[in-house]
């Protein structure tokens, strides 16, 4: 409300003139007029609508409203309202925000614009007041403030550091977890470059991040290292998203940093524990070979040297002793094979699957021809797997296909490889005895066997070895089978060695 508008209103007089009343009545703004003592002499319909009442002219004083409160909620007596203050010759207070209550209990916000009316001698003859309804604006402000508070509370109570920066890389906000994580207080760091947090050997990350943000891209779970105020480094996972202004222009970025130091430590711990376990299994299976050797050779000596001195039962017992020793020897040597699987070895890292298959088939020529199996393979790819590992896979899977053949038909074994987007899928299918569905997962476990050693020999390590080899290369292994019809063992090998890259 400008000074001119108020001046114009004062010229309308005390509202007694019908022409000006018509204008005043039509105004969409609440307006009332008082005499010099503050008694209401006129109010327009907008004033009734706003205040929710029709005051008694000549009786009600100072204000058209029912009850008034200051913005902080303290009641404001009518004789202290801005109109009253103005009429009593005091200061004219402009633009304050007041709260009023209607007789029905509802409330509204308004800003009063009081003015005094004077006669030609300058004496106060009355007052005129405009009440501008600001309720909707106040409610919106309130809502925004509430939302802001809520957001602030969420940001501050987050366990993750939440930081924002502009496109120059200057930090613009910093939550409590950021303080905790990086050691800088908000006062210290806001306005300073985000590169303070980046170790010198990783400074090149920032321009790349900024470039992606400018292109409107998000950076998701970027695992990197950042520096604390005290210079120590921490492992964090960053998620950075562009922040846009109302017009959609990218003006900066919000960054969520999660401390993954503990996770990293846990991962390293697991890796170490696994290595220890492997080392233990290796030593254990290696050391087991020694007493086994004595057992084997002495039972052999006994059998050779003393067979004529032993009776039938003693010879039978000796036979069990020797069979047990032989079985344990295979078991221990398979177990050694299992623990030795590691891709961190020297030698070629890719294998031509055709060559690997040829080597395996040659080494198995005896058992294959004995079984009468027909082995069909198509052209196979070269894959990023150590040749010894691929051979071991073929050896165990084809060995199983031959071993668990059906006696009702000629064994047929197909070796194929299918190319998919990110990986190769190898399949070794047979027409053997098959596997019941309930054992499809179990068979890959260490020492898991489905048959007695009388039916089929074996240690239950072969498929566990396959599983382990495939896992080393981040592949998968599974079996599809129809009991009595045959089995298809499939394994996948990612095309690139490290699928994370």
């Amino acid at each position, binding site marked *: 409300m400008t000074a001119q508008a108020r001046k114009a209103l004062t010229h309308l007089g005390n509202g007694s003139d019908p022409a000006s009343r018509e204008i005043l009545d039509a105004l969409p703004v609440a307006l009332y007029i008082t005499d010099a003592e503050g008694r209401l002499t006129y109010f327009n319909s907008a004033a009734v609508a706003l205040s929710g009442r029709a005051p008694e002219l000549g009786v009600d004083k100072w204000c058209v409203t029912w009850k008034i409160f200051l913005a902080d909620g303290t009641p404001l007596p009518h004789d202290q309202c801005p109109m009253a203050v103005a009429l009593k010759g005091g200061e004219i207070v402009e633009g304050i925000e007041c709260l009023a209550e209607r007789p029905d209990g509802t409330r509204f916000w308004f800003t009063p614009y009081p003015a005094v009316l004077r006669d030609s001698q300058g004496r106060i003859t009355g007052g005129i007041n405009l009440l501008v309804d600001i309720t909707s604006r106040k409610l919106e402000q309130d809502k925004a403030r509430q939302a802001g508070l809520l957001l602030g509370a969420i940001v501050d109570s987050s366990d993750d550091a939440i930081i924002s920066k502009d496109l120059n890389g200057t930090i613009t906000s910093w939550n409590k977890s950021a303080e905790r994580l990086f050691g800088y207080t908000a006062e210290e760091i806001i306005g300073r470059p985000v590169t303070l947090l980046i170790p010198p050997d990783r400074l090149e990350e920032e321009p790349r991040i900024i470039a992606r943000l400018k292109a409107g891209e998000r950076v998701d779970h970027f695992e990197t290292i950042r520096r604390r105020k005290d210079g120590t480094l921490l492992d964090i996972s960053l998620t950075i998203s562009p922040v846009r202004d109302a017009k959609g222009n990218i003006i900066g970025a919000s960054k969520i940093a999660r401390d993954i130091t503990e996770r990293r430590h846990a991962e390293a711990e697991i890796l170490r524990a696994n290595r220890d376990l492997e080392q233990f299994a290796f030593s254990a299976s*290696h050391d087991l*070979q*020694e007493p086994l*050797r*004595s057992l*084997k*050779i*002495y039972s*052999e*000596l006994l059998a*050779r040297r003393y067979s004529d001195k032993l009776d039938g039962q003693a010879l039978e017992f000796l036979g069990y002793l020797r069979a047990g020793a032989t079985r344990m020897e295979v078991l221990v040597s398979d177990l050694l094979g299992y623990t030795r699987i590691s891709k961190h070895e020297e030698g070629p890292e890719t294998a031509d699957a055709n060559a690997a298959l040829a080597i395996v088939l040659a080494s198995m020529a005896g058992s294959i021809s004995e079984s009468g199996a027909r082995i069909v393979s198509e052209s196979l790819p070269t894959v990023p797997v150590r040749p010894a590992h691929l051979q071991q896979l073929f050896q165990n899977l084809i060995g199983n296909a031959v071993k668990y053949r059906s006696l009702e038909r000629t064994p047929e074994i197909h070796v194929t490889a299918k190319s998919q987007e990110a990986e190769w899928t190898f399949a070794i299918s047979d027409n053997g005895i098959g596997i019941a569905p309930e054992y499809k997962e179990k068979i890959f476990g260490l020492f898991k066997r489905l048959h007695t050693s009388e039916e089929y020999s074996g240690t239950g390590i072969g498929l566990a070895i396959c599983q382990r080899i495939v896992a080393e290369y981040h592949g998968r292994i599974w079996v599809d089978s129809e009991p009595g019809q045959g089995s298809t063992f499939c394994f996948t090998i990612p095309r690139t060695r490290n699928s994370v890259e």
Partner: protein
Amino acid sequence: MTQPFEILIAEDNPADIALVREALRTNNIDCVLHVLPDGEKALARIDILDSDPKTPQVDLLILDMHLPKHDGETVLKRLRSTRHYSRTPVIVMTSLASRWIEDNAAKDGAMVYCSKPSSLDELLKLGAVVRNMLNLYGRGAENPAPEQ
């Protein structure tokens, strides 16, 4: 009538000592076998033998790598650093040939290694290796090991 061979065996496992005895017997090797059950006793015996003026008294050392107290490596080094036994033939018995064993066998003509027997065939082979080493380097051998 020739003197029996004097053979030292540094080995802690009685089963393996008995195997060596068996190997010597089946190959008709006429010998006296002296057992040194740990590395400490082996080192002590080597020191005593070397300080004795009546030398040489040993024709062959059969050595296990995994001895208690001092390992076979230490025993072999000590033997090779003596005055009188630096060229005495040595058979290293091992269940797993290490790089160290392979390298030394390549350098040291009077040292061979063979795996501990786990079958009768291997037992016979061990006996043959002993005989061969004695023939090549033992007392009265055609090609005695030259003095250093």
